[in-house]
């Protein structure tokens, strides 16, 4: 494999990892606050559809992004209502959101555009175009560093940079601010937080809302940056891979970044080489596709340190019994 091929594969990894990373961080906020969220997939899907639809109608991708975040937030609030206010089962609420999103996106798109549950193709200002960092052209001729900078680092849509900046931001918010300390505490021992006079419900809603924003960006990235429109079920299971990444990363932001990049890299390799011939054996593409899930099972089985979820995760908080 030559250097340029490697750069191309890494470039593809970054594109594939970005939606995973955003969804993974979204899940991180929610689960750290004790709200399990398997509705990431549904939120991304809803955001993808509404961002593409709004961008198609207004011709402005930023309005599309806002609409996507709004749609994702709306589903987040439903999840919050069901699992925080009404203390329902968080898994069931998440499943319901996935079903709701799968159906309603196609229904609304069909009603608005009559193109069989698609949105019209976006062009020009209706899309997030690649974004060249300064000096990308002039540095391109420098060996090793030049192609790395101009091909790999530069030229992505702005949402990619937002996603990568969200990692240190998440780390800072969770581990260096009072809000973050309380948010983590609410996922470990909500009673203690309550005793300290801080609202458990308020913190959990805040976490779920942040989750909605990040999922919204992820969905908008799929539909308006990677693609030029919404197609039914276009998230294709990425919300679930993000959940797997979250477990693999043991609910930590920096680990989430490396895990998502690893999963993106595995996908990119699988897409580039399909069946990989190692001389002795041939690795089929199906194995590469399944690898993220296999890795998660390995981690859950306790190899390489235990993955312990937030202790109060999945349980609604009841003040008095």
């Amino acid at each position, binding site marked *: 494999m030559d250097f340029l*091929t490697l750069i191309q594969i890494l470039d593809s990894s970054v594109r594939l990892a970005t939606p995973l990373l955003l969804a993974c961080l979204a899940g991180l906020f929610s689960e750290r606050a004790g709200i399990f969220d398997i509705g990431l997939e549904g939120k991304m899907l809803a955001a993808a559809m509404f961002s593409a639809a709004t961008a198609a109608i207004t011709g402005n991708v930023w309005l599309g992004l806002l609409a996507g975040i709004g749609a994702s937030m709306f589903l987040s609030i439903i999840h919050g209502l069901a699992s925080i206010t009404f203390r329902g089962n968080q898994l069931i609420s998440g499943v319901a959101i996935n079903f709701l999103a799968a159906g309603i996106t196609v229904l609304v798109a069909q009603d608005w555009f009559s193109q069989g549950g*698609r949105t019209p193709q976006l062009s020009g200002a209706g899309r997030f175009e690649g974004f060249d960092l300064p000096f990308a052209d002039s540095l391109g001729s420098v060996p090793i560093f030049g192609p790395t900078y101009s091909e790999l680092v530069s030229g992505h849509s702005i949402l990619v940079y937002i996603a990568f900046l969200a990692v240190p931001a998440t780390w800072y918010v969770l581990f260096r601010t009072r809000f973050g300390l309380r948010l983590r505490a609410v996922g470990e021992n909500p009673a203690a937080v309550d005793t300290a006079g801080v609202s458990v419900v308020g913190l959990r809603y805040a976490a779920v809302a942040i989750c909605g924003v990040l999922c919204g960006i992820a969905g908008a990235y799929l539909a308006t940056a990677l693609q030029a429109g919404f197609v039914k079920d276009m998230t*294709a299971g990425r919300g679930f891979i993000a959940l797997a990444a979250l477990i693999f990363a043991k609910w930590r932001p920096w680990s989430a970044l490396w895990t998502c990049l690893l999963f993106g890299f595995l996908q990119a390799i699988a897409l580039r080489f399909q069946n990989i011939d190692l001389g002795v054996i041939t690795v089929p593409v199906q194995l590469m596709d399944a690898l993220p899930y296999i890795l998660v099972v390995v981690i859950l089985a306790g190899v390489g340190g235990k993955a312990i979820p937030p202790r109060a995760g999945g349980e609604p908080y009841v003040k008095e019994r």
Partner: protein
Amino acid sequence: MTFMQKILGATAAMALSAGAALAEPALIFDLGGKFDKSFNEAAFNGAKRWADETGNSFREIELQSEAQREQALRRFAEAGANPIVMAGFAFADALGQVAADYPDTKFTIIDMVVDAPNVRSVVFNEHEGSYLVGMMAAKASQSGTVGFIGGMDIPLIRKFACGYAQGVKAVNPDANVIANMTGTTPAAWNDPVKGSELTKAQISQGADVVYAAAGGTGVGVLQTAADEDILSIGVDSNQNYLHPGKVLTSMMKRVDNAVFQAFTDGPDMETGFNVMGLANGGVGYALDDNNAPLVSDEMKAAVDEASAAIASGELAVHDYMSDDSCPALNF
């Protein structure tokens, strides 16, 4: 809306005639959905053409899940619809069970063979059409490397790939054909993001014409090809209009003709095995204003010559599904 009115009108007429057999034809779409810009949409266009030309109406349903196949079939059969046309190979099992229960109803299944006295099985020689677009791809390619992106990895899609590769090799024996499948589950029909990445991967390996036989995933392939300024080839329906000047051609699978024919033949249709190939206009390539500047006279002449040779039986294109192997391509 007018269409709904037609349905409502037909229902009312049916109620008035108090159960008299009206023998309205019916069409069942597969999970891809009626407006997939591809296979199902072609079926719908055929039905619509029939309705426009005859002034009659037809019934239709879009499936939402696998479980509805048999249910939808039985409902139409019970309601007296005749003939009932199914777009998609996945109906084979359901039809095999239902057909015997309604001996007086005629069924047509597209892309699959069901052996029953009241069933017409329509299959297409996709490899022949793919051969033609493969020739065009090889002629249009500057780099000598062309790509194929399939949807779900099933024999039918490999049949497309194999015909395409043979066409490419016929024009340029040294050409390199990169063939990728999107996945092995039905999700592979609706993953444009993966389609895009596959296209980019093929472009970085030198491909400058990419043929997509991948349903909704193909939308991503065509989009990326247009973004990256290479040529793409659409499938099933004429997709040239999606990116004018960027789509070299489309491999037309005339599902619309099959549906139109079935509806026209009506309840008295001849059943049995129907092959739609180049010889009877079942497959072909699309040429319209959107891709006219891309297709040179020399290209067109060569393709038309090959088309005539295939139609007359002079030139045989290997069918992947006949022996599960392809002489021109390794999977």
